[in-house]
């Protein structure tokens, strides 16, 4: 119950969504010598900006156009959001603090992460305009680039620690065991959540907003927010598998440590927006199938050596 409502669950997820979007805008602004969102709550540095955006979107007209299948058009953003939130069921927030304890937690998480792309594609298909269609193709192609390295990097960790996620906080953190796998995970996650050099499916300078083009109001909130839910799940997974999760501590302090690690990872992914230009789709695909694939195969090799030794 605590897990569902408080830590990996809803409240932390909501706070994360609000803070991550704000932090992304603030970080980009800092790099560009701007202030970013400020006057909405000047003393707090504009933290309430995301709340204002949220209220604005939720209280603006819900347009469900009649040129396409209206039921699907309206329902699919919620489906995408829901699917992106599902990995949280299996990610422990502390010893015993997990919604569904399972020896195969890692497998479930990987499966759900890979399932979410078809959901996004379905959404873009239901929206049915030229920009969402291009965004859909790019989303598919980008998944083709990252999924094998992502699965292999997690396989490398599974070779050492097994697939029960709650065991990862014991012993050496994954980054020390297998730095190659960690690097591959960083890059593959940046692709999976369309962080910057790989912000290809929703490149707003090229194809409006890709799969999110047609949505306004709370549908936009759901569709675009789902990306950050995925980022949340991936940050938690990365912090647990590679940084040892709640490792040195336990209880409330352990949760704080875990959140700190996940935030550090998130900050890295968010900062990418400010410092990288966008890659072309063929560059991203080649990166995925050349450098990243061989690095991830090497990561599996490193883990095998670790096991044999």
């Amino acid at each position, binding site marked *: 119950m605590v897990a569902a409502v408080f830590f990996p669950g*809803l409240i932390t997820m909501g706070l994360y969504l609000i803070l991550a979007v704000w932090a992304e805008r603030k970080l980009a602004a800092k790099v560009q010598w701007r202030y970013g969102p400020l006057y909405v709550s000047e003393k707090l540095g504009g933290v309430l900006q995301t709340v204002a955006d949220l209220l604005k979107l939720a209280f603006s007209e819900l347009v469900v156009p009649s040129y396409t299948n209206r039921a699907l058009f309206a329902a699919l953003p919620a489906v995408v959001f829901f699917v992106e939130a599902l990995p949280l069921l299996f990610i422990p927030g502390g010893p015993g603090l997990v919604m569904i304890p399972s020896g195969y937690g890692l497998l479930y998480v990987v499966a759900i992460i890979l399932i979410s792309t078809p959901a996004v594609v379905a959404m873009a298909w239901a929206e049915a305009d030229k920009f969402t269609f291009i965004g859909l*193709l790019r989303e598919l192609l980008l998944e*083709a680039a990252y999924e094998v390295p992502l699965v292999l990097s997690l396989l490398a960790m599974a070779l050492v620690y097994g697939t029960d996620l709650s065991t990862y906080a014991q012993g050496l953190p994954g980054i020390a065991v297998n730095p190659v796998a960690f690097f591959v995970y960083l890059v593959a996650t940046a692709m999976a959540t369309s962080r910057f050099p790989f912000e290809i499916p929703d490149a707003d300078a090229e194809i409006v907003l890709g799969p999110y083009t047609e949505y306004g109001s709370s549908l936009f909130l759901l569709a675009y927010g789902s990306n950050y839910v995925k980022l949340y799940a991936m940050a938690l997974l990365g912090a647990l598998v590679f940084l040892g999760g709640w490792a040195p501590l336990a209880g409330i302090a352990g949760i704080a440590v875990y959140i700190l690690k996940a935030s550090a990872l998130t900050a890295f992914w968010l900062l990418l927006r400010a410092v990288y230009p966008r890659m072309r789709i063929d560059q991203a695909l080649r990166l995925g199938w050349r450098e990243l694939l061989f690095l991830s195969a090497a990561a599996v090799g490193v883990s095998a050596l670790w096991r044999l030794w």
Partner: protein
Amino acid sequence: MVGAIAFLVLLAAGLALLYAVPKLFAPRAKTKPKELRFEAGNPPYGRLRRRMVIQYIRYVLAAASFEALASLALVAYSTAQQDLVTPLALTAVVAGVMAAVGGDVWSHD
């Protein structure tokens, strides 16, 4: 399990709330452009779904086949306890085939 069900129910309720709020409180004004698809400020024009970009099909094929192998490695490892041979062999297959293909394809890039 109670936690999981609570999580799913609360999440669904929250999402439902996001539909209810604009339905109840937002102002509404029906116009023709809102009913039509977005076309960068123009009236809709031309065909919507075009042919797919075929030059990337090799990547899609590779993903479709090797993703299965990679997941298989993960599953094989976790079901047959501590068996290192299968995952390593499958990974080697993925990397090996890509290297072999790559030697040929990338030399033309």
